[in-house]
């Protein structure tokens, strides 16, 4: 080949320079070709240079900044922002830790942290907990198992914790039920459910993460069926009983449900998964919980909802006020499908009709299908699971309440997460569209002295202190009456876009709201957590009521969640507005309209703690006077402790 060394300078920008001297008949073509490639070279090289200048070398970030340190005011670091938990770029701009409030010099001292521990909500003595598992009633005891990390106050090394209670309120800790001691659950003894067989025996199906990180379903059962405490558990020697089927990722196959009977007398379970971004529920039939046949069809699927975790499937009566055993079907029975959405960490449910023959379910209202409609709870609430309590003929719901403070604080205080107070679930006959959730009646046994407040008039724009002694362990039942004249007179507006989450919270004054209660508030209202109603009137005269929980001023600390939670709550003609609130240190569970809309939140005040916490009524509406009647009880501790002398 020709000697190309004189051409090497081509690698600089002017590739065509050495060609201008040649004079032959081909010169015009050569020149054109050379100029073309020359310009192409220039263009590409320029593009490469620009690209390199735009990227910041990983190491350079450190060095570039050093020079300007001395003059660096903190405010300049506006690039440094709190990051949205679970809502990474592209999904939502809203940050989890809304920046606001002064930062105390030492944010968390031991006094503030130890106050946060709850008195009557289930939590282990220390460390991390998440999903409730295998709840059941057996030989006089209620059992709760739960995802637990025995080593730290953060998620990891998950095994099954265990506790028992006679009344769903006073819990006694038992030894760990299952550890990660087999290849098929070495990487995690994950969520599962119990089924009580015809002869009263219990089988437990749970997900194991194998040594290879594959999600499989395993069978376990009590070592001794005569032990009412069910302390020891045995794993079926030939686990796993189910592995991910073809087409399903080994990471998308978990949380088997309680089984129900088919009309052919087989047991049927469902397991959540996903295909691309469609959340699905797979269905399996079995006679012995060891061999399974997968149905061709799915129980249900909803596009765009992502992975369905902790699927739950259960019947509710349209007419009776009791729960239904999981296998019940027939006229007057609707079925609920519930899924925990991995993508947004919320629990969704939908009411519909189950077809036993082909194992499918259709929602009554596809526009509020699973994952795109109603939620059990509009606050911090996840991985919920129901069980049929044959003792009191009710369906009871458990839900995991995580922390909304920083992991550093959790590590400092040595624990993280609580379970909600168990809730009775009923179909809401009045609306026909919602489920009702209400704390189990046994919680009333914790009530100590109560104080009644009758017909307290709250003028527009006022705050009324309620004189009770302590305000950190409370059961509040309140009813609010509004002048119907004021509702009539209020001008309707196209305020149709109100949403608790995007509103200005309890400080945003509307004609017909907000009004409600301030809990965990200090005397000067430097910290306060409003739980309230906000009504809007559309231009067509239609009234809408929203039920919200505002955390924006709940604490002076800056490293806690400051979001506003809530949702629309259906209010029927003739109904008064009602709220029930359970306050238990750092957890608030609020029930609107008898449990039609529920909000649980975690609150971490720095001042409104111990004796400084107070309760107020408030009415921040501009055109509405409100009258409230309420009863407030001090709540005793549940003295949750290890089972004695085990």
């Amino acid at each position, binding site marked *: *080949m*020709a000697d*190309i060394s004189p*051409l090497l300078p*081509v*690698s600089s920008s002017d590739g065509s320079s050495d*060609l201008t001297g040649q004079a032959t008949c*081909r010169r015009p073509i*050569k020149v054109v*070709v*050379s100029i073309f*490639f*020359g310009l*192409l*070279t220039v263009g*590409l090289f320029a593009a*490469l240079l620009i*690209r390199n200048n735009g*990227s*910041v070398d*990983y190491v350079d*970030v*450190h060095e*570039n*900044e050093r020079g300007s*340190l001395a003059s*660096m005011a*903190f405010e300049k670091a506006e*690039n*440094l*922002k*709190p*990051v949205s*938990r*679970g809502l*990474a*770029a592209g*999904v939502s701009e809203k940050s989890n830790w809304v920046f606001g409030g002064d*930062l105390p010099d*030492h944010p968390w001292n031991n006094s503030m942290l130890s106050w946060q521990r709850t008195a009557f909500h289930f939590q282990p003595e220390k460390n991390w907990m998440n999903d409730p598992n295998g709840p059941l009633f057996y030989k006089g005891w209620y059992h709760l198992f739960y995802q637990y990390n025995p080593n*730290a106050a*953060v*998620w*990891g*090394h998950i095994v099954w914790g265990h506790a028992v209670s006679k009344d769903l309120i006073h819990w006694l800790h038992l030894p760990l039920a299952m550890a990660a001691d087999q290849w098929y659950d070495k*990487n*995690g003894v*994950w969520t599962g459910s119990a089924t009580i067989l015809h002869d009263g025996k219990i089988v437990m199906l749970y997900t194991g993460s194998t040594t290879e*990180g594959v999600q499989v379903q395993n069978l376990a059962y009590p070592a001794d069926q005569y032990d009412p405490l069910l302390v020891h558990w045995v794993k079926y020697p030939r686990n796993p009983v189910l592995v991910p089927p073809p087409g399903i990722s*080994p*990471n998308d196959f978990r949380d088997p449900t309680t089984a129900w009977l088919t009309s052919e007398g087989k047991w049927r379970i469902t397991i959540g998964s996903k295909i691309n971004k469609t959340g699905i529920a797979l269905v399996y039939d079995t006679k012995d919980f060891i061999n399974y046949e997968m149905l061709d069809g799915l129980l249900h699927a909803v596009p765009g909802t992502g*992975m369905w975790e902790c699927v739950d499937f259960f019947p509710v009566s349209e007419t009776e006020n009791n729960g239904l055993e999981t296998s019940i079907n027939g006229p007057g029975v609707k079925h609920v499908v519930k899924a925990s959405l*991995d*993508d947004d960490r919320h629990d969704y449910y939908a009411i519909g009709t189950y077809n036993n023959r082909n194992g499918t379910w259709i929602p009554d209202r596809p526009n509020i299908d699973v994952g795109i409609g109603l939620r059990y709870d509009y606050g911090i609430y996840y991985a919920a699971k129901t069980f049929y309590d044959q003792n009191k003929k009710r369906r009871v719901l458990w839900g995991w309440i995580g922390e909304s403070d*920083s*992991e*550093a604080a959790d*590590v400092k205080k040595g624990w993280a997460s609580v379970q909600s107070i168990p809730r009775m679930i009923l179909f809401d006959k009045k609306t026909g569209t919602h489920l009702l959730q209400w704390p189990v009646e046994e919680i009333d046994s914790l009530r100590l002295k109560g104080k009644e407040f009758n017909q307290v008039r709250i003028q527009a724009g006022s705050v009324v202190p309620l004189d009770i002694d302590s305000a950190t362990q409370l059961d509040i039942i309140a009813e609010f009456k509004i002048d119907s004249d004021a509702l009539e007179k209020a001008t309707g507006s196209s305020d149709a876009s109100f949403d608790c989450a995007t509103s200005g919270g309890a400080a945003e004054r509307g004609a017909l709201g907000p009004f409600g209660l301030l809990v965990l508030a200090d005397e000067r209202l430097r910290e306060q957590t409003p739980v309230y109603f906000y009504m809007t009137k559309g231009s067509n005269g239609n009234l809408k009521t929203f039920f919200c929980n505002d955390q924006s001023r709940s604490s002076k600390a*800056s*490293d806690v969640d400051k979001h506003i939670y809530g949702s629309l709550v259906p209010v029927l003609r003739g109904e008064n507005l009602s709220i029930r609130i359970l306050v238990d240190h750092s957890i608030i569970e609020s029930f609107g309209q008898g449990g039609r809309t529920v909000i649980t939140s975690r609150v971490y005040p720095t001042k409104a703690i111990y004796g400084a916490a107070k309760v107020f009524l408030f009415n921040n509406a501009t055109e509405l006077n409100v009258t409230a009647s309420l009863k407030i009880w001090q709540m005793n501790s549940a003295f949750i402790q290890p089972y004695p002398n085990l």
Partner: protein
Amino acid sequence: MNNTISLTLLHLAFCFTLVSFTPISALELHGTGANMVETTCQKTPFYNLCVSALKSDPRSSGADVAGLAQIGTDKLKAKATATLRQITALLKVAKDPKLKMALRDCADYYNAIVKYDIPVAVEAVTKGDPKFGVEGATDAANEAYACGRGFKNQPKFPIYASNKVVHDLSAVVASIVQLLL
């Protein structure tokens, strides 16, 4: 004639070499290792940092998203550990009590990041429950943010740069793990 051909060929050869170093969207369809990094990093809030961090590890070529998440957490762990060492060293020589207090708070935050947040992220990704990984990485970012806030009233913030990298890289890792949901 020969000169023309060889000149043209050389130009062509050189142009194609350049083309292969310049990102062109058509290349993404072929899914080479370098492009997995770029497409993944486009979905994070700090693209350039993401690309630099991942590419500085040879494992990144040919890695899938889970692999990139692992690499990202490894980088984050290294950076956070180094920053914690910086903080400890500064604490030894700091005299001003307010500076010491801010540094001590940062040491707490960084202990949490290194001992808890990052291991949670690693475990969540390897064991297949990524949502906890998103949470761990996000917490690391927020703790770096909180560390920075402690210097709000300080004239100097000696670890500003490292802290920013830890914050930003945590946010990057959180976004990558989010893709595994």
